[in-house]
């Protein structure tokens, strides 16, 4: 890539860089490939190992040894919904949900069936992406000699792709339509069973574990109201309508409660730091690439 012959032959049409300057730059570039890249990779690995540790990978057969954490989900402004969730690794193993229906002032109590637990796919995905990023990094240890800037860029792109996906999984919960929500396995998890006019959803948004409860009312078939089914969304608003099994429903109330999961917050910080490290390394490489005007393949 840094063919000295080429640089010399292109000298006249290049910018004012002198040959000495060129040699210095070439030396600096070699230093970058040999020393700096590995220093950054080491730093990245350290940060990501920390992040990966937070996810506490379950080893097969030893699931029960994972730490259980309880989170109380509530809101200071309203008390219609209160939930106590137990998170074990990536799965919600227990849930106690108290729901106060506005009209009747009666409190409904639900909990997970003994035999069921709910896997938070977002956490599993984020964990897997981090581990894949770590695998990529570990395949290029100090003994590996990077020969081109393009090679470093390629590795950084691959790592950044995994990290961006890991972060996106936590920052962008899946948006679902209301019928999808109503037919999801989550509805069958509870004892006593959820009433037909309530729906529930769990997800991670940034570092928060969120619980959303939708209260529904059935739209009479001869209603004059304009029926328009709502699209997919993370959080539906009151008034959203949908059709399920020939019944039409409208969301009357939405209650959202949440609780910060501290270790998720840590991982998000780690993701951001490592993404910036990757980008800074790429920027350093690009300084040289634009100077020499070489073809990065």
């Amino acid at each position, binding site marked *: 890539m840094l063919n000295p012959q080429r640089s010399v032959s292109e000298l006249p*049409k*290049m*910018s004012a860089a002198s040959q000495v300057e060129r040699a210095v730059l070439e030396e600096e570039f070699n230093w970058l490939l040999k020393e700096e890249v590995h220093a950054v990779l080491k730093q990245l690995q350290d940060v990501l190992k920390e992040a990966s540790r937070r996810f506490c*990978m*379950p080893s*097969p*057969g030893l*699931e029960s040894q994972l730490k259980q954490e309880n989170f109380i989900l509530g809101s200071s402004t309203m008390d219609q919904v209160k939930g106590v969730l137990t998170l074990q690794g990536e799965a919600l193993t227990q849930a106690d949900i108290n729901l106060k229906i506005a009209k009747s002032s009666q409190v409904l109590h639900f909990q997970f069936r003994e035999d069921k637990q709910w*896997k938070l*796919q977002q956490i*599993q*995905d984020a964990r*897997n*992406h981090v*581990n894949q990023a770590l*695998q990529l990094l570990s*395949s290029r240890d100090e*003994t*590996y000699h990077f*020969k*081109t800037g*393009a*090679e470093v860029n*390629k590795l950084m792109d691959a790592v*950044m792709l995994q990290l*961006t*996906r890991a*972060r*996106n999984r936590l*920052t*962008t*919960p*899946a948006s679902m339509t209301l019928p999808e929500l109503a037919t999801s396995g989550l509805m069958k998890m509870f004892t006593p069973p959820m009433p037909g006019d309530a729906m529930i959803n769990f997800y991670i*948004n*940034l570092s928060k574990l969120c619980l959303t409860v939708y209260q529904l009312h059935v739209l009479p078939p001869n209603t004059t109201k304009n029926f328009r089914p709502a699209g997919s969304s*993370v959080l539906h608003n009151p008034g959203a309508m949908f059709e399920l099994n020939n019944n039409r429903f409208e969301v009357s109330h939405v209650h959202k409660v949440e609780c910060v999961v501290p270790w998720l917050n840590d991982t998000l910080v780690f993701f951001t730091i490592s*993404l*910036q490290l990757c*980008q800074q390394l790429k*920027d350093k490489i*690009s300084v040289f690439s*634009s100077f020499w*005007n070489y073809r990065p*393949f």
Partner: protein
Amino acid sequence: MYRDTSHKAFTNIGFTLYHVVSREMCLWDVNDGRCIEFTKLACAHTGIQFYQFTIGTEKEGRLLCNGHYPEILVVDATSLEVLYSLVSKICPDWISSMSIIRSHRTQEDTVVAVSVTGILKVWIITAEVSKMQDLDPVFEEESKPIYCQGCQSISFCSFTQSSLLVVCSKYWRVFDAGDYSLLCSVASESDQSWTGGEFVAADKVIIWTEDGCSYIYKLPASCLSASEHFRSDIGKTKEGSIPPLIYKIAERADKQLLICPPVTRFFFGRREPFHKLLIQGDSAGRLSLWSVPDSTPRQTLQVSSTISLQEAFDKLKPVSAGIIDQLSVLPGKEEPIKVTASVYIPSQGRLVCGREDGSIILVPATQTAIVQLLQGEHMLRRGWPPHRTLRGHRNKVTCVLYPYQVSARYDQRSLVSGGVDFSVIVWDIFTGEMKHIFCVHGGEITQLIVPPENCSTRVQHCVCSVASDHSVGLLSLRERKCIMLASRHLFPIQVIKWRPADDYLVVGCSDGSVYVWQMDTGALDRCVMGITAVEILNACDELAPATVDALSHSAVNLKQAMTRRSLAALKNMAQHKLQTLATNLLAADNADKVTTALITFRNTRKQTSLETGGARRGNSSPGGQFAAGSSEVPASPAAHHLGQVCFTKKRLQGQSYRKPSSTLAPRGLQFDTCGLVLSSSVSFQESLLRQLSLATGRKLTLSDIVGKGAYGLSRAVTTQHLLSVISLANTLMGMTNATFVGEHMKKAPASLCGATPPPSPSPSLRASIADISVIKR
């Protein structure tokens, strides 16, 4: 590309190729490069396998997909619709790799997969399951931890039907296919990591590494079902007992140039002559093939055949034409100066080419194209076509923009260019004078954008520049200063959007963060991530008319338009890009074909003009039945002119080029353009002749124009050809009451016209005109 699919497809159906990019999945027609089907799922795929299911005599194709989701999706191979999924009850996690085991004895086929946590999963696909159309999940039959993390590939021994090969990056293992017990495990040598493997024979495996080497090992007796020692050492597998390496397959000499691991696959022919082939493709564009012998060669196996893209390009003769070849080669230099950015200005018929040495060349587009496509005395002239060189950039020009083309609010004289030297230069396109240099960025200029119409007056006279130091600038062409520089972005800029009503500039970065800048004050209003960021970007789309965006980036969207098969988008692209396309892409088989085709043209010329004369009279008749009557009026003079362009260069030059360039009438441009387009297109297809000789009364449909022979000719030409036809029709239709017939020409054909009686419009003629309107629509 998936090997089994494409292999099957080439032999059986001959038209399918499946392709997965992240979340998108496409089905391609390999004959003409068309995308037949396209789907997008919420999650990303990493693997795809073709599986043909037979019910009686009926064969149905299925695709099994794994990826960043804890299940295997079963997709219909023709509609790409998800039919059902194979899910896990125990420890559901992402699937790293999978393999389909076909059973010839029963109707049940087995899917074996390994999850990222190293758990082997087995699903049984029965006839009932394959027929199932509802989304009921299928649970696994068996789930067994085999402690193979980071599994790269899993394959089944088709020779003995009794063992499985699992390749992980640091070791490979052989398992019993019956109870999945470990038979043998081999660790990799120090710095190698395995990326895949396959059974070559009952007792031999081939394993390949990340750096493109392949090794063939002989399996120990405990792995062979035919041996009496089979399964003799289960549970006491010795890590040290490495099976003998039989031989190694030669690696490439210049592998250090690769930027990512090559893709290696082993093919085993199931029919005579039972070829065993190892094929490898790499990032340098090289394809290598080894024929794997059954006998043991003495040393490393040499490559049987190899070819690279570069070699293929080097062999190409004549070299395909570029945009301004004749100006790129400097005397005394071997390498031509490459064109790195270009913009075509239709209103002036000029092509602006920025080059890697920092110069910008202005050339008349059609004359340039004629030089590329047609032979004649002009080829010998030095410095032809007439051009102007703008010098100002000190290094590669990365983008050029002619703002007036996007919006009439800009000065007609201004041409803006950005370069690798961090500068943005404003030029006077008529005088060639450098009007201003903006040096506000700290990185290469990557993009120049025109702000939308409804921005504030101040911003309306700006162009927006994006640089590789992650900064965005608003450069006022009128005030000649940078009115805003947004430079705090940590990541490269991916998208620029506008909210003119709120005076906001919205910058989307590659890490998913969104920065909202106030254009007037230059203050950073917000910086957000996650859902909010996505919502902000989407909100900008809803406000802005999508068409504006689509048109201003025609080059990018041309590809999209084709893959999405949007005729409307194609039409837009066709109008905008026609001439550059014609120049670039149709030029490959230039001179000879053009000339022969033109002879045909000449022969029909007389007849065409006769008919046109008739049609024109019909048009002027009181009835005026021709809604699209004008469409074929210019067509025929175009043919006239074509003759002139192509045969009598002198006459052509006499017409247009003898005039002072300032008075180069648009009519001359249209002459040139139409002549050029017609002659290029005709060289590929006679159907254009038919289109032009509409008046001969032959019925003509779109399929006539683009179908039949066209597809057989060349894959590259097909789409371009379609574009040419559509845009040609558009051009002709667009010129209401236009005529190519100058005063001097009117006289000549008049004598011819006079000889024929005015024919009444035949029904077939009307039909063909309707066909053209269809094209236009």
